[in-house]
């Protein structure tokens, strides 16, 4: 299974170069774009497809025939009451949970249901968890180093040394997430909001095409929240950003398209105003 997806990644790379010339072991430009892992084919504008996805746990239908498309470069907010299936959806996309049925594709070619977590991560999907999870015993700097987009196999890690460009990249992200002074501090000692930022920084280091962000502003001050909104908005365009959030004010401040999940499937989709005026959404949120 792994080998197959790797091979198909090769084929795609070859077809991407019409002359068929792909120098073996050509120096890869880490940090800017994927080469060997294969380009994501977004020729149909859509970067992420979920079609008829079903997941059930012990009879409980967490996802019920969920169909959802994310366009390349889009910023999408996903809202919904507790148990609507938002986190399960992220688990399915990142390979943590396998769907019972349905299709999940990255671009036209990559079947995510056949890939493992680390393959999906290197293919270009980054995830921020609901509860901030960083590597507590490592320093802030090391956390970013570990997340950095580079060859993450065993042997390269054993002989890896940070290049100047890589150090610069880490410094750049440290500035973006405003943790420059804390670079040598253990991540466990950061405040909750800082951990959130560090995790966002790790996402940036991964240089993903799609960022899945689960409740990014929990535990943040008003100022931090504003900066997060700015950051996420600035990322969209070049990357696709999918945000799951409860805070409606925050969603309103960043959202262009909002998808409402309910009982494992899409209830409504549209601009914030459309969605808020949708009678079915009102019913679900305000109760019968």
């Amino acid at each position, binding site marked *: 299974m792994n080998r197959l997806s790797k091979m198909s990644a090769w084929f795609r790379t070859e077809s991407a170069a019409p002359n068929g010339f792909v120098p073996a072991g050509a120096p890869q430009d880490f940090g800017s774009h994927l080469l060997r892992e294969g380009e994501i084919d977004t020729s149909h504008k859509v970067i992420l497809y979920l079609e008829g996805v079903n997941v059930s746990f012990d009879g409980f239908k967490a996802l019920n025939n969920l169909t959802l498309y994310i366009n390349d470069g889009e910023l999408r907010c996903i809202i919904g009451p507790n148990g609507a299936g938002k986190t399960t959806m992220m688990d399915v996309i990142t390979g943590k949970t396998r769907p019972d049925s349905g299709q999940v594709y990255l671009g036209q070619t990559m079947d995510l249901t056949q890939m493992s977590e*680390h393959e999906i991560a290197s293919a270009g999907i980054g*995830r921020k968890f609901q509860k901030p*999870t960083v*590597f507590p015993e490592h320093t802030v700097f090391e956390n970013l180093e*570990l997340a950095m987009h580079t060859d993450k*196999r065993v042997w390269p*890690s054993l002989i890896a040394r940070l290049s100047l460009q890589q150090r610069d990249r880490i410094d750049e992200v440290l500035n973006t997430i405003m943790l420059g002074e804390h670079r040598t501090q253990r991540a466990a000692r950061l405040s909750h909001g800082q951990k959130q930022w560090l995790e966002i920084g790790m996402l940036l280091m991964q240089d993903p095409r799609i960022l899945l962000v689960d409740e990014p502003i929990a535990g943040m001050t008003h100022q931090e929240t504003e900066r997060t909104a700015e950051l996420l908005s600035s990322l969209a365009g070049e990357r696709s950003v999918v945000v799951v959030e409860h805070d409606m004010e925050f969603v309103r401040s960043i959202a262009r398209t909002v998808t409402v999940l309910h009982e494992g499937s899409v209830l409504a989709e549209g601009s914030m105003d459309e969605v808020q005026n949708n009678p079915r959404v009102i019913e679900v949120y305000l109760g019968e």
Partner: protein
Amino acid sequence: MTRQPLILHLIRDDRGGQIFIGLLVATLLLVSISNLLMPADSVWHLSTYAVTLLGKYLCYALLAIALDLVWGYCGILSLGHGAFFALGGYVMGMYLMRQIGERGVYGNANLPDFMVFLNWKELPWYWFGFEHAWFAALMIVVVPGMLAFVFGWLAFRSRVTGVYLSIITQALTYALMLAFFRNEMGFGGNNGLTDFKDIIGFSLQSDSTRIGLFVASGVALLLGYLVARYIVTSKFGRVIIAIRDAESRARFVGYKVESYKLWLFVVSAGLAGIAGALYVPQVGIINPSEFQPLNSIELAIWVAVGGRGTLYGAVAGALVVNFSKTFFTGFIPEAWLYGLGAIFIIVTLFMPKGLVGLIKQRVVPVKAAGAA
């Protein structure tokens, strides 16, 4: 950036490691001098018995480093690491058996005594090659490494972790013990392999060979420490700590966790094999009791007592526990197991970072104040 020789680079920020290496080198020199150059009636003379005992401890220390590498740094509590140690020991035992040649009781140049006794007519295929030192030396790491690879591949791929992994490693060593007890296995059954005569041409009875083995154990311990230190200070080392602390995060960042665990486990098994191989010629016997689960559990206690995740802590733990064991079993043998249990409880309750953590607590605040 200044370039330093690798070895200095490895222990630059490793105060405990520097002390450990200094003490180790000093011990190797002093013990050799005291045993070989001092007259036997001098107070400065160290008996060959004591040298052998120290050599044994050095092997245990290397084994403790092997366990600390997987447990302290990657959270894999293997309770079957004694199996890799014993396998390395058996490989060495097979080599030493083949060196006996026709000096055995039955005078058979081709077959070890126990095979003659069992009426075997020829050497089993898996004994081929063990008369060559180079082949045996290779097998000392290959055999434990292969077992670790197969076992680890199955276990880590199925994402067996925590206490479940500990239990199956325990089962592994128990199963091997039962297997090696059987005469049909061709490893001497209950009695194991013993009556060794010489190793690469040197008589095992002579003092100089004993010193040679002792020094070899010390050098192996030193090299093992440096290899382990290289691993944990590399990016690979940071990845395994990340796996220990937040395994699923490591996956989502893009690391293939199974591979990291697997290779770490294999390297660790190889180190344990080397420790076992150096142990056997010094104690003069290897038998299936080396596989008993209790040994592996004791090993985990050494590491816990010394302090996990520092490498030199594991060395300290192995030495302290074994010295106390030798002392107390000579003194009140019945009480030893209770004593060991008590040490373990005290360490778990009051010193979660082991002896090393206790010392650090005393020393580091002073140093930190000085540095600031």
